[in-house]
């Protein structure tokens, strides 16, 4: 019983560009799914094919068990919130919200009650007679939300709806969208390139790259068990540190410059000696040695950045660029520092495929 089901959908543009390469997904009713990826990864294209604004070149789309990919956009029972709001500039806020209902032959009284209710929920009651040009960015965004809400569709589609807002308003609207979605329980697909939005909004996250799904999972899963190097470096700022290494014994790896790292206990004996691997560790999982602690790795100190809540210390480990995210700010004048970490925070990836080498 999926609310939305994509069955190996394909989109190839007439110029030969394959924007979406066989993407399959199933979304549960009421779920908030976020599609995230760098620009050009096909996330917007997927959303637009669900909306019917782009034609599929392969595969099928089902909404609530009904095939919709051959229907007109207006006949798919979906509503979409656009990046630049896409309000009708010549219509008042009320008419903007009523337009979709009116075209579906809903009675005047029902339109009125639905629009009034939505306006109340979005604090737009005082602005119903205004034109979009007389509203602020946040208010326009709310009108766009209201226009989607009043139709009570089976599916909400959000195409980077917060990227035109300034940072403070974005955080505010992010929370508002989440609360609203929880209240309405409408299945939603949200597209963004902003990983903070992706992590905070999603029930489930879909990470995309070059038209293919890299990983699907809860934000926690995706962050802590990235399926491959792409996911590992895409999510998290600053990005995960990666080092080339060679497994030298049952429980040890050697970096380029001869420094050795213990394999995590559960990985011991699982990776055959002689194999080349990429080792990843997040900047916040690295710490400096304190009062005589034995360093696990040597760190060549570079520049530091003060973030207020923490400090980013850039430098090199074994000749590879590396960043530390330290909890408090200290001046470091030493050329070399000792670094420690817990082995369980190490991620291992296959050098050739980039895939995670899992515990199992």
């Amino acid at each position: 019983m999926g609310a939305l089901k994509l069955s190996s959908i394909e989109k190839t543009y007439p110029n030969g560009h394959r924007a979406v390469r066989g993407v399959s997904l199933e979304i549960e009713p009421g779920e908030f799914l976020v599609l995230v990826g760098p620009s050009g990864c096909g996330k917007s294209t997927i959303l637009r094919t669900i909306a019917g604004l782009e034609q599929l070149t392969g595969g099928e789309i089902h909404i609530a068990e009904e095939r919709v990919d051959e229907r007109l956009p207006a006949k798919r029972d979906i509503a979409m919130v656009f990046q630049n709001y896409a309000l009708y500039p010549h219509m008042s806020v009320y008419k903007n919200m009523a337009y979709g209902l009116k075209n579906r032959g809903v009675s005047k009284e029902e339109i009125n009650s639905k629009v009034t209710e939505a306006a109340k929920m979005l604090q737009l009651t005082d602005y119903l007679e205004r034109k979009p040009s007389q509203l602020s960015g946040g208010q326009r965004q709310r009108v766009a939300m209201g226009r989607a809400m009043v139709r009570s569709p089976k599916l909400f589609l959000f195409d980077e709806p917060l990227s035109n807002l300034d940072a403070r308003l974005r955080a505010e609207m992010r929370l508002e969208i989440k609360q609203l979605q929880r209240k309405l329980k409408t299945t939603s697909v949200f597209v963004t390139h902003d990983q903070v939005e992706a992590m905070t909004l999603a029930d489930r996250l879909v990470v995309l790259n070059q038209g293919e799904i890299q990983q699907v999972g809860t934000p926690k899963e995706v962050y802590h068990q990235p399926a491959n190097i792409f996911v590992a470096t895409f999510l998290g700022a600053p990005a995960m540190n990666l080092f080339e290494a060679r497994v030298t014994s049952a429980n040890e790896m050697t970096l380029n410059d001869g420094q050795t790292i213990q394999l995590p206990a559960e990985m011991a004996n699982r990776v055959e000696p002689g194999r080349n691997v990429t080792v990843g560790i997040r900047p916040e999982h690295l710490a400096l040695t304190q009062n005589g602690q034995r360093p696990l790795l040597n760190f060549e100190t570079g520049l530091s950045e003060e973030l207020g809540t923490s400090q980013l210390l850039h430098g090199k480990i074994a000749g590879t660029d590396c960043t530390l995210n330290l909890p408090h700010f200290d001046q470091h004048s030493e050329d070399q520092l000792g670094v420690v970490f817990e082995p369980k925070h190490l991620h291992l990836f296959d050098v050739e495929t980039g895939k995670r080498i899992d515990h199992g």
Partner: protein
Amino acid sequence: MANKRVQFSHPIIPYLFIAPQMLIIAIFFIWPALQAAYLSFMLEDPWGMSREFVGLENYQYLFNSAEYLYSFGFSIVFSALVAFLSLGTALILAVKANAVLHMQSTYRVLITWVYAIAPAVAGITAYFIFNRHIGVMYDFLNSLGWQFNPEADAVDASALLILVSVWKQIPVNFVFFLAGLQGIPKAVREAAALDCANERRRFWTITFPLLAPTGFFLLVINITYAFFDTFGIIDTLTQGTPGGRTTTLVYKVYQDGFLGADLGLSSAQSVVLMLLVLSLTFVQFRFIERKIHY
């Protein structure tokens, strides 16, 4: 707002800057207009040897002349039809051309290049096409059973003038409408596609209102065109024939002033025409523009 004003150290400088423009307006517009107003109260002999003040006699004569009143009515009907038909056709063409995916620029060029033809040339071309002796269309229309004869039939002559005038004006309207259509944000059209399944309804509720500013601008331009710029077409095609039935106000000014050498009467007509266009433009800006959102 106050900061937007540029302050010049010397108060004369701004006047010097606009002086060339003012000079042109004064020489080519204000001076002839005053001259026309002055002459409209005069009776002058055809050789310009003497003139005599006659008060409103020229105007009285005009508004008692059936011929003048006819050309007044003809001008209004003619202009309304030319403006309406050329705007309507251009809008349809622009909407269709905008929806074309392949070779869109080819369509655009094909529809636009009529613009490069001078009105007089358009008139002469049409003259050949609809000519009684050599015209292709003349034979074709008559073979269909329509006794088409613009030299004798006022309706046929008017239809011919309207056809050529509309044809000549479509490119301008087309280019502006197409630009207007492409100015409508893609996302707005997509939002409408999600809100309304009926394409025609979407056109009238979203596209058309958003094109209104362009449409209004074109309406002003088209009425001015139909009043003044169709002179060349009339002069090459019908010269007001048959029997003055295709004489517009502008053509009559020319006929009475330059062919009839009655400068006083012709000047009076110019003054009336000026007032008419002035009031038309005023009405357009006052009442139609107010209904345009944006």
